[in-house]
């Protein structure tokens, strides 16, 4: 009974949605509420990954806004890039972007992805994501909170 009563006490756990999305770009598929996302870790400390999994978890539930994580860039409309771009990941990141069908959107998540964060100037770092591939949406924070990631995703899904 313990689990049932706990569920009964807590009730709904999903964070309520903030008011309507602010469109940053046109939805790449031309349809609102449908965005297939491929995540690329270009050299992250995995802090952003933890927050992304929070954003797609049951509490923040990004899927209700139409964003879905997919396993292959061939299936994706958008890339979700985290971390500084390291030397080993620069070319794979370009290859992955080339594998995403056009039109496509690149979302850079976290301070490292925006401006190299604490890793700026390190020997293995090529630069921020925008130094390697064109970026459409950026999410600040180290790491950004799941709510911020949701906001960025909603600005693309338009829902």
């Amino acid at each position, binding site marked *: 009974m313990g689990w049932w009563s706990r569920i009964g006490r807590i009730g709904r756990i999903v964070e309520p949605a903030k008011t309507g999305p602010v469109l940053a770009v046109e939805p790449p598929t031309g349809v609102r509420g449908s965005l297939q996302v491929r995540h690329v870790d270009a050299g992250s400390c995995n802090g952003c990954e933890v927050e992304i999994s929070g954003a797609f978890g049951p509490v923040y539930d990004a899927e209700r806004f139409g964003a879905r994580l997919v396993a*292959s*860039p*061939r299936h994706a409309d958008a890339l979700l890039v985290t971390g500084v771009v390291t030397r080993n990941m620069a*070319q*794979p*990141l370009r*290859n*992955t972007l*080339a*594998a995403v069908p*056009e039109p496509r959107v690149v979302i850079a998540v976290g301070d490292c992805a925006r401006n190299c964060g604490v890793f700026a100037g390190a020997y293995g770092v090529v630069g921020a994501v925008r130094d390697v591939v064109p970026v459409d949406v950026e999410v600040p924070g180290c790491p950004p909170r799941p709510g911020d990631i949701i906001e960025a995703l909603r600005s693309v899904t338009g829902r």
Partner: protein
Amino acid sequence: MTTALTAGPAAPAQAPVSATPRWPWLARAASALTVAVGVLGVIAGVAGLVHRFAPVRVGWLIPLIGLRLHLDPLGGLFLALIGAVTVPVGVYLVGYARREHLPPLTLWVIPAFVAAMLLVAAAGSVTTFLLGWELMALASLVLVLTDHRRDVVRAAGVFYAIVTQLGFVAILLALMLLSSSAGADSFAGLAAHAGRVSPAMRATVFVLTVIGFGSKAGLLPLHAWLPRAHPEAPSPVSALMSAAMVNLGVYGLVRVDLQLLGPGPRWWGVVLLIVGGLSAVYGVLQATVATDLKRLLAYSTTENLGLIVLALGAAELLAASGARSVATVAIAAALLHLLAHAAFKTLAFLAAGSVLAGTGLRDLDRMGGLARPMPVTTVLFGVAALGACGLPLGAGFVSEWLLVQALIHAPRHHDATVALAMPLAVGAVALSTGLAVTAMVKAFGVGFLARPRSPEAERAREAEPSMLAGMGLAAAACAVLALTPSLVGGALRRAAAAIPLGPVAASPAHVRLDARIRLPGVAGSIAPGWLAVSLLAATACAIGLSGWGRRHRPPRAAVPLWACGADELSPRMQYTATAFAEPLQRVFDDVLRPDTDIEITHHAESRYLVQKVHFRAEIVDGIERRLYQPIEGAVRAWAGWVRRAHSGNVHLYLGYGAIGLLVVLVLAR
């Protein structure tokens, strides 16, 4: 990290066989003779099928016993089959002999081998049959030993010689017992006096012939010579052995057990059903995990011959339980599958020979990407593989469909054996057909598609025109059997009529292989030609519709292949034959018992860093290991024990002679 991958028995590239002076005219003359013998076989076979000949006795050829030939529909079918296999092989031989430098002995023994096979099928008496059989065995042994400078070939030759001679002993005993108890030597006489043979003698003859002819047909557990001898023999010889010679094992079973002694008791049918079913499933399972292309094809032969014998066993069992119209369907399935197997296996071995001649490779794990340099061979091997799959448009489809129809329409309401055996047989056929698809997809996909996995595969050359012509003939035969089996319908009906399926002389309606095949007493019917036409039409429609739909889509963009972010795909990333079969190998672990071994070398500084991984996997034939090796060990031990009597002392040997003479004198007193 470097990964050294060695999988399967290492198949060394075949070196040029000999340094004998090359006489181009010799190869051409031997090939022409082979083709001529083949054409002769076809003519004799067709004559035997359409016309009733009296037996011919050629007394002067062999003293005392003479040579007795009898052309009848059953022998005629096999004569025509052997001839039809020989003709494409002979054409192919012109180019193959030049490419692979076949020695003159091999070239001249090939037509002799074919002639010996024809003699077996045309034999009209027990002695002639046995003579032909032994000539065939000896000729094939010489051919297997073509490349005798290599140890593997010599070992395969010894193995083949032992199995084939043991089989011959069994056949010799069986036919001598039969001949003496019936009091006749000719087949016609035996058929007339078969009633004199006691049931115990019939049973003895049946068991001995199943062992003897089963060893020739590559049935379990005497199949082990096939995967040893076929890969090591030159490819045209493999084609002849696998598509023509093994069929004579079936011929022997049909001639002696089904025709002369038939119809047999029910347990004969059950024995054939079990042996056939086990051979089919075990053979195809080994084919699925084999990485040597010719070994794979050899195991596929065991599978297909198993299916044929299963069909014969089903026919016997059904006839014995009174379902004779369904039994005729099973007989038709067996005979048609015999033809289909001969057609696609000839083509498959010839194509494997082209690959061997063009690359020097037999190991599928080192092939790949042959479709670009060898387009014609690739298409032709595809035709053979489709035939072996038993799918529509393939040569084996109609016969396997007939077999399944016979098995599922068996009346099972009044007979527990039939009710139990038939569903199990359907299961065996379904499993072996499904696994055959896996094996053939592996052989075709891994061997011919994707990118070359080795420099040899990269440097592949297309086969010579004569080789392509030979394969083209075999492919045409495959197409005929797949699309219009009605062309061989008459021959099959005449041969099937020679097999008695019941005590009553009046035989039931036989299967008519018309454009639309209808089965007697069964509701099912099929039209393979129309099936092919509709499939082609549907494909054309699909291509046309997609072309029409493409007008509304955005223009195509060319992007590099997705390699998970890596810059380019390398041949090392491709699926290998070993990897393809690995899941199945896991599932059938208990049957296959693979011998795998992984060695990991770590860096000296840290246990966490791997310097080198050595992986070795070998699949040894389980039956060979668990059945043959103990017997071999026992024979060795016994021979060692007997050798104690051989001290090298001349006086002792003289003493042995004296004792032996005394024993003989006392016994013959």
